[in-house]
């Protein structure tokens, strides 16, 4: 792992009984960059996120977050990581502020520091006026923005987002993408963004294609598209071929 790496996944394999969900997966996220993790449903993206977030133990291989090995220093590694899960994970019976304060306490933040940070982050996601509303009164897009604010409360330097725009309308999707890209540009946040929506990826983004639990391509989105075809066409070609380990 070099100084410039925010996340390093080296030779990670994961099995559920006899079924291999991840096979010898290696990838890295460069600090301060937006990295897209592309893969069809069932490719292993969520399993990979579960291993990186330590929901599943790392059965084989290594994971390091900002230089902290997940198996040796889990607390330090998780403290520097923010996550937006695929499923909605806010407590709908509580208010926005109560949800965010709860999350801040899970990271050992004092109430005063948490309140200041909540103010800043709700302003950033444009929902300060919904601070005291119950989450159940928010739209899907607004809930997602709150989840992004929540994932940033403790000041992580690496943000994982697992298909964060699934089920959202076009405008909400654009909002979410814009917020996260601004975080990368203005705060130097490192982002790993799992998706299968190609419009969310720019040609200069780092991209990794996962298929049947294996990395089948990596590089910039533009290089994967190979100049002539679109990223979507390249992706379809890659997942149509038998899975093979990228060189």
């Amino acid at each position, binding site marked *: 792992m070099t100084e410039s790496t925010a996340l390093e996944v080296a030779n990670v394999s994961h099995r559920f009984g006899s079924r291999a969900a991840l096979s010898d997966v290696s990838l890295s996220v460069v600090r301060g960059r937006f990295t897209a993790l592309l893969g069809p449903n069932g490719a292993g993206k969520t399993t990979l996120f579960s291993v990186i977030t330590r929901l599943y133990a790392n059965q084989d291989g290594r994971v390091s977050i900002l230089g902290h090995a997940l198996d040796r220093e889990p607390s330090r590694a998780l*403290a520097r990581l923010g996550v937006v899960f695929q499923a909605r994970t806010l407590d709908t019976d509580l208010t926005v502020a109560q949800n965010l304060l709860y999350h801040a306490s899970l990271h050992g933040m004092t109430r005063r520091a948490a309140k200041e940070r909540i103010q800043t982050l709700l302003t950033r996601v*444009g929902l300060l006026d919904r601070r005291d509303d119950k989450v159940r009164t928010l739209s899907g*897009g607004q809930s997602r923005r709150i989840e992004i604010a929540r994932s940033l409360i403790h000041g992580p330097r690496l943000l994982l987002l697992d298909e964060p725009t699934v089920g959202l309308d076009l405008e909400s999707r654009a909002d979410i993408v814009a917020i996260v890209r601004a975080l990368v540009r203005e705060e130097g*946040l490192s982002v790993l963004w799992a998706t299968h929506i190609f419009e969310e990826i720019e040609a200069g983004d780092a991209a990794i294609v996962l298929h049947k639990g294996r990395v089948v391509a990596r590089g910039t989105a533009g290089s994967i598209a190979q100049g002539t075809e679109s990223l979507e066409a390249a992706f379809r070609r890659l997942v149509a071929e038998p899975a093979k380990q990228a060189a």
Partner: protein
Amino acid sequence: MSKTLAPAPVDKPVTHLGRLDAVGYLICLGGIVRRELLRFFNQKERFFSALVRPLVWLFIFAAGFRNTLGVSIEPPYQTYVLYEVYVVPGLAVMIQLFNGMQSSLSMVYDREVGSMKVLLTSPYPRWLLLLAKLIAGVTVSVVQAYAFLAIAWFWELDIPTIGYVAALPAFIAAGLMLGSIGLLLSSMVKQLENFASVMNFVIFPMFFASSALYPLWRIRESSESLYLICMANPFTHAVQLVRFALYGQFAPVACAVVLGTTLAFFTLAVVAYDPGRGIMARRGGPAGDPA
């Protein structure tokens, strides 16, 4: 772009804002307990329904059996007591039994809706997160048990005032034990729908095969093996611990069984929720997770 989006303030990059020391542990513990209490107060019907069950037992069942089930003198009682008086400690601990299982059910629900993931990605050790959940559940169950005792007070229970104070640690110990059993169960139950079997195979046998509703010497008269089952049931000891404490007495054997059972089940729950060794890891992760 949406008009609701404010111009992004340019912040300096922040470093981790939380504390990973002992103060951080306490903040985390307090935050989890606070959230559980908020959820509890948002579900007022849960509080009242938890009270209705033992009150029905007390006011209808116990009143009906008053004349057929007299209870002779046995410790901690000094005199012959009415059946209603006898069942009150058992019914109070029954509230805690249901509460422990309710907490367990809410853990399974949290797992299904995904909020368990948020909890488990906290940088603090799993045992601390589970302990916080346990403490939150116990706090709620103790409040419920005392609310029941407050209503039952009108039933001429003759519990000495000191008994209400002395029973507090007993209720806490009983709550910790039943909550720990619930925690372990929550790691084993894969789906919310399976919870009906927990009712059938855990709650009812624990409650009925205990000293909650009838003194054990009566059970022994009818069946020695059933008596031994009741004695092996940790719920019996939780009831006895509270029963003695309510009359200002200490039951050392019951206390040892309750604390030992708590330690055993809590340890097993921590192992079960460990990402490497636990049941969750072996069976393929939380229910409903896509690959």
